[in-house]
């Protein structure tokens, strides 16, 4: 019988505190797992230096984060969505439909995507065309579109090591995959003339045809995170994995990085725009929450401050390529300028 009392009192307490706890005093963030380490570094420093509680940062993917942001306005929806790709029109429409009208788009910097293999194996110097020729389902051979016959990297280009082709690439749910497709596969497709061949063959969407990867087991989609890719490369010394620059920089004792078009990926080479495979990282702010959630404006300003996101800040030390236009972003954040329509 005492259970009934306990339950009753617990429910009563719950009911009472539900009202008192309604005012959320911490910033809630969700989204990209690529942005997560940066966001948690900022959140940690923010909690240490300000009188506001440390923001809560969830991961779960860029798309999921943006969807959560657009669920509506209110305390049980998130305030900020981290995203490793730009917001889509469908997200904006969903937001508008749910009453989330003003969103700020904050670009925090750039992230490099690197190709790395086991440290004891041979070194690679790739071009996007090599990757397309190695992984695409159809390649041009003697002027004909044929099923990809390449077995080793030396088949792709004679001066690459004669190592079996085996690539661990991010799965399609990752934002990284979009960049990989766009900046490596499609760029390579154009470079080695396969795009033109597809067009000549009357393909409906030549770029789509370029992105068809071979399915004979040499290109393996990794749906997990970079730790899984690392474990795969570790177990399979022939494998070449696709990593984020910061992840590679934390594991330089196990991985060696390949150059792309002769450029070694680093914070500097990406900042200068020499290394081709990089992408901007964003977070999206729900303006309606700015004056409701304490510390939210301060967190955003702190994130893009020179102390954090500048070239000498902790984010750059962890592998974020800082944005040369950071001052403009800081100005925008101060003015709470909502983003315009996508161009």
């Amino acid at each position: 019988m005492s259970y009934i009392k306990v339950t009753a009192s617990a429910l009563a307490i719950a009911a009472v505190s539900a009202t008192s706890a309604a005012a959320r005093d911490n910033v809630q963030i969700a989204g990209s797992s690529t942005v997560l380490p940066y966001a948690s570094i900022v959140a940690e420093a923010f909690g240490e230096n300000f009188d506001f509680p440390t923001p809560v940062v969830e991961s779960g993917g860029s798309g999921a984060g943006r969807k959560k942001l657009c669920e509506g306005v209110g305390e049980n929806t998130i305030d900020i969505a981290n995203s490793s790709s730009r917001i889509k029109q469908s997200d904006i429409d969903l937001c508008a439909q749910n009453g989330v009208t003003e969103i700020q788009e904050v670009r925090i910097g750039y992230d490099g995507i690197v190709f790395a293999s086991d440290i004891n194996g041979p070194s690679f110097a790739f071009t996007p065309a090599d990757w397309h020729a190695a992984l695409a389902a159809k390649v041009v051979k003697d002027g004909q579109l044929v099923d990809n016959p390449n077995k080793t990297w030396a088949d792709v280009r004679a001066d690459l090591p004669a190592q079996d082709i085996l690539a661990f690439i991010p799965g399609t749910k990752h934002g990284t995959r979009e960049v990989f497709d766009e900046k490596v596969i499609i760029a390579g497709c154009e470079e080695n003339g396969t795009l033109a061949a597809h067009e000549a063959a009357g393909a409906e969407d030549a770029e789509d045809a370029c992105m068809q990867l071979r399915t004979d087991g040499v290109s393996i989609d990794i749906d997990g995170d970079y730790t899984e890719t690392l474990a795969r490369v570790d177990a399979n010394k022939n494998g070449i994995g696709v990593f984020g620059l910061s992840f590679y920089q934390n594991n330089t004792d196990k991985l060696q990085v390949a150059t792309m078009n002769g450029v070694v990926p680093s914070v500097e080479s990406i900042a200068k725009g020499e290394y081709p495979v990089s992408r901007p990282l964003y977070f999206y702010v729900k303006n309606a929450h700015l004056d409701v959630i304490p510390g939210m404006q301060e967190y955003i300003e702190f994130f893009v401050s020179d102390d954090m996101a500048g070239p000498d800040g902790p984010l750059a030390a962890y592998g974020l390529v800082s944005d040369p236009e950071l001052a403009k972003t800081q100005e925008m954040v101060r003015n709470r300028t909502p983003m315009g329509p996508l161009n």
Partner: protein
Amino acid sequence: MTDATDPSAQPAAAPQRRSSLLQLDERTRRRNAAEARFRLMGLIAVTIGILAVIGLISSILFNGASSFRQTFITLDVYLDPAKLDKAGTRDPEAISKVTTFGYAPLLQKGLVDTMAAQGIALDGLTAKQAAELISKEAPAQLRRYVMADVSRIGQTVTFDVLAAGRIDGYFKGRVTMESAALDRNVSPEQLMLADRLKEAGMLRTKFNLDFFTAPDASDTRPEAAGLGVAILGSAYMMLVVLVLALPLGVAASIYLEEFAPKNRFTDLIEVNISNLAAVPSIVFGILGLAVFINFAGLPQSAPIVGGLVLTLMTLPTIIIATRASLKAVPPSIRDAALGVGASKMQSVFHHVLPLAMPGILTGTIIGLAQALGETAPLLLIGMVAFVREYPSGPPDGFFEPAAALPVQVYNWTQRGDPAFVERASGAIIVLLVFLVIMNAIAIILRRRFERRW
């Protein structure tokens, strides 16, 4: 089995009158061989199982045991008023404007000065490189110390600060001179300096209580990451589960077992409870997101939502265990109680329930242990998050963000820095210890109080 009872087998054996107990005939030999084979297979199965468990546990222990020890550097820091309190007013408001970035140079100077006092040379390293031996958590520690009492500014204080993750890894064998030569985050010279600090007694590896009490830390400071928030969050969730699932489950089972009429409707309920026990836990997470967060408006990442979801998951387990132990109480007890004039309710609550209690508690504890290790439903309700603030005391704490133990393991395995592998394995050890304790309690309760008829 059928061979032994098969009557047709006897006439076949009958002509051979020579059969004796000492000399096995062909048929008996085959039967014996079958038995030997079966025993061997059983033995192999058990051996494989034990080997797998040993392999798993030893790999976790091998990776994770070192997380209970941590390397610290002892140094004297001069809390320079010129840096921390430029105005000289000792106004906490003004001092709080100095961020952790302002405290880092004090530590660097403190380390270099302490080394100079001990006669340790930098040996070609810059002061900045030497300061990289210190964890990035240290400036925050220093700032907290100063903010707690601003009159400390101007003093020289001795501090035990965490060593950076790679330095800690060096003394645990995770980082070697060879790997450091390739690693961009640490150099062999820094490791040699760490060796000299150790010789001078400035650097020690000691028991790491912070691992159990500290909150999570970001990717740049694995050495500071702890399980504090996760343990608290898990404890809150278990409290919610216990307070809700035990009374609900026991009440439901008593009603179904003792009072409810046996008809199609109760049969349907019974089948559905068994089905619920087999529903994948992620389904409860989806339900929790839809009902508790989106509909009821409860906050995200809060232990109350986690606890409610896990309650739903645990209820079928508790109901099934409770019904089984109620069924195990012999009807003669009920009949005797009713016979001396007890009401139905009195017979249940005074006689049947106390006798069934050990079984109910065992079922509850096993259900709780299951809930403690559950991750999937928490993914959907925002508990897989970077949470650094401790939730406050109950009841408000139930509504504030928290992590949970299994979620912390999942989070740490995703981080880039290899030092988090050690942390994750350490967290697994802690989780396993909790589970073993809970299951041991369940076994003890069963052994001591269970009665058989």
